């Protein structure tokens, strides 16, 4: 395996881990505040759908991303009302949200585009143009044709080449690492990575973080200190929604170009696994999701591992990330202790 291959695998790992990382951090905020969230999958799916839909209708990926955030936020609100306001079962609420997203996205997509739940492809072309036309016409009235064209010209996040990436390519190892792996991703990838230190900082260096962690460990301590448990938990759940929104937007408008039904393909559950793996810590989340991304990238790269005598069939290479996860979990990661008040609605009076 030469350096180039390694770099390409790492590059792929970075892309694959980004949605997992965002979703994992989403779960981290929520669960650190004591609200379990198995609805990550659903929120991501809803966000992917809303982002792709609005991007397709407006030709503007920023509006799309905003819609993605909104879509996930709406489901977060449902989760909050069910599990915080009405002290419902957080797991059931999460399951319901997954179902809701899975059904609603296709239902709405079919209603809007008639493509069986798919959105049009977000690459310039006839399919997209027909969807864009009304919005562009409406914009033209306001900004003129040039403005309208400019505002509707980016239905999808492009890749960003970081400064000096090309120049650095000549420098051995570090330079090519920078050019190949660090540079050349969509902006949401950088946002996701920035979220890790940011989350750490928020959690451990701010008043909000202190209270958030406290409310997930012992809500009564927060309550008796005169701080509203409900507000804190809603804030956490909302942040989780926003991060899932980013994850979904990245899936539909960054990594791929449009929405396909069920396109999250279980990533929300993998993110949940990564969260436990990470023991609910931000840097751990980075490590855990990188591991998942890496394992998947390796399996993609070597779909039929030829061991001379036998060829490992593709099914096993596909399952490899999961098998390795179990092995690593069993071998190297000890008991993960979840936030103590997690999963329990806060009840003062029995």
């Amino acid at each position, binding site marked *: 395996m030469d350096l180039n291959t390694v770099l390409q695998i790492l590059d792929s790992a970075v892309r694959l881990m980004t949605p997992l990382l965002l979703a994992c951090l989403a779960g981290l905020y929520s669960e650190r505040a004591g609200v379990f969230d198995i609805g990550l999958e659903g929120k991501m799916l809803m966000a992917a759908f809303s982002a792709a839909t609005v991007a397709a209708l407006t030709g503007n990926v920023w509006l799309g991303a905003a819609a993605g955030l909104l879509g996930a936020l709406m489901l977060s609100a*449902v989760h909050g*009302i*069910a*599990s915080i306001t*009405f*002290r*419902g*079962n*957080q*797991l*059931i*609420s999460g*399951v*319901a*949200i*997954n*179902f*809701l997203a*899975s*059904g*609603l996205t*296709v*239902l709405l997509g*079919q*209603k809007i585009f008639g493509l069986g*739940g798919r959105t049009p492809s977000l690459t310039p072309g006839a399919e997209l143009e027909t969807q864009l036309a009304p919005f562009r016409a409406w914009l033209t009235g306001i900004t003129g044709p040039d403005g309208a064209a400019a505002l509707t010209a980016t239905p999808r996040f492009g890749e960003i080449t970081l400064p000096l990436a090309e120049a650095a390519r000549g420098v051995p190892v570090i330079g090519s690492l920078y050019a190949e792996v660090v540079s050349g991703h969509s902006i949401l990838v950088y946002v996701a990575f920035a979220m890790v230190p940011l989350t750490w900082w928020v959690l451990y260096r701010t008043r909000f973080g202190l209270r958030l962690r406290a409310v997930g460990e012992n809500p009564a301590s927060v309550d008796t200190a005169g701080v509203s448990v409900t507000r804190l938990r809603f804030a956490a759940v909302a942040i989780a929604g926003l991060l899932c929104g980013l994850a979904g937007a990245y899936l539909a408008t960054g990594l791929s170009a449009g929405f396909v039904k069920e396109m999250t393909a*279980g990533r929300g*559950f*993998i993110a*949940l*696994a990564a969260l*436990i*793996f990470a023991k609910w810590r931000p840097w751990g989340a980075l490590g855990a999701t990188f591991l998942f991304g890496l394992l998947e990238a390796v399996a993609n790269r070597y779909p039929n591992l030829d061991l001379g005598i036998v060829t490992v*069939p593709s*099914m*096993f290479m*596909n*399952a490899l990330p*999961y*098998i390795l*996860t*179990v092995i690593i*979990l*069993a071998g190297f*990661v*000890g*008991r*993960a202790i979840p936030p103590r008040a997690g999963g329990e609605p806060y009840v003062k009076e*029995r």
Partner: protein
Amino acid sequence: MNKMPKWADVILTPLISLVLAMAISALVILAIGESPVEALTTMIDGALGSSYGWGFTLYYATNFIFTGLAVMVAYHASLFNIGGEGQAAMGGLGVALVLLSLPLPHWALALPAAMIGAALFGAAWALIPALLQAKRGSHIVITTIMFNFIAAAALNYILVNLMRPVGSMDPASARFPNETHLPKLSDMALSLGFEWGKNTPVNISFFVAVLACALVWLLIWRGRLGFEIRAFGKSEPAALYAGINPVRITVTAMLISGGLAGLMAINNVMGEAERLVLNAVEGAGFIGIAVALMGRNHPLGVFLAALLFGFLYQGGGELALWTSIPRELIIVIQALVILFTGALDNMVRMPLERMFLAMRKRGA
């Protein structure tokens, strides 16, 4: 405590929640430009309006009873078994291996043999996550999720490369021998002299499922082992104090859970398809989570919730089959039912409680 009569809590609360869920579903149907009344009548007609509909409703319910019980038993040991999907798939493999390799002359022999195969394979698939949880503290939620994927991969490989008859396009096993076909409820009705549920897949496994409910009830609420499982689930330090071995309980509970999930295969694989196909479980493992939680982790609740989901599945299937409403609507309706009856139940309960308290005060 005793804020309202038990009957109200058990009957009134879920009923009102269900009505709310249906009301919101109606709004969704209106929003996509269809008629809620027509949709509802189609669903009810299709699922409950004939013995035919009932046949399907009960068939699906049978699957959900098994997976619901599986989730429930583990839940009482405070283990969240998300692996029903993989365990049920492996149960299918167990059934197929038993029926294709043993010369079983009659279904009455084949059924117990297949049940053993199904339960063993399902339990085996739960064993590793259970041991890892008990001995290494590896979180069972992760490991069971991973084992779902691994089961899918293994089954994919086995069906395509090992069990598929040569030349067949279909990644499925050979058909099971005719002698091993389970009696359908429709056949049993015929032999009793009336026609019921002709051509529906519901079969004798339904009674096995009902029996399983009763046995699980005995186990959990009346048995010594169940007592230990529940105690361990509520408090591990207390369990230690009482001499309950955490490793033993974790492993036993997961084996029972996996076995129950595996048993689902006698319904869908042995009873319906009569051969093993790829993705035979079709998400029933996940529905089992909703069923167990909605059924409040009680076998009777699981039974009723499974019936409700069976109804939604069949009614929804009919809806998608015979109207222009997309089939995804059903998923939305299911979501709303889960949400309102399972997670938003306090929204209904709290005002009800206030009402009953006020009534009692006035009465006193």
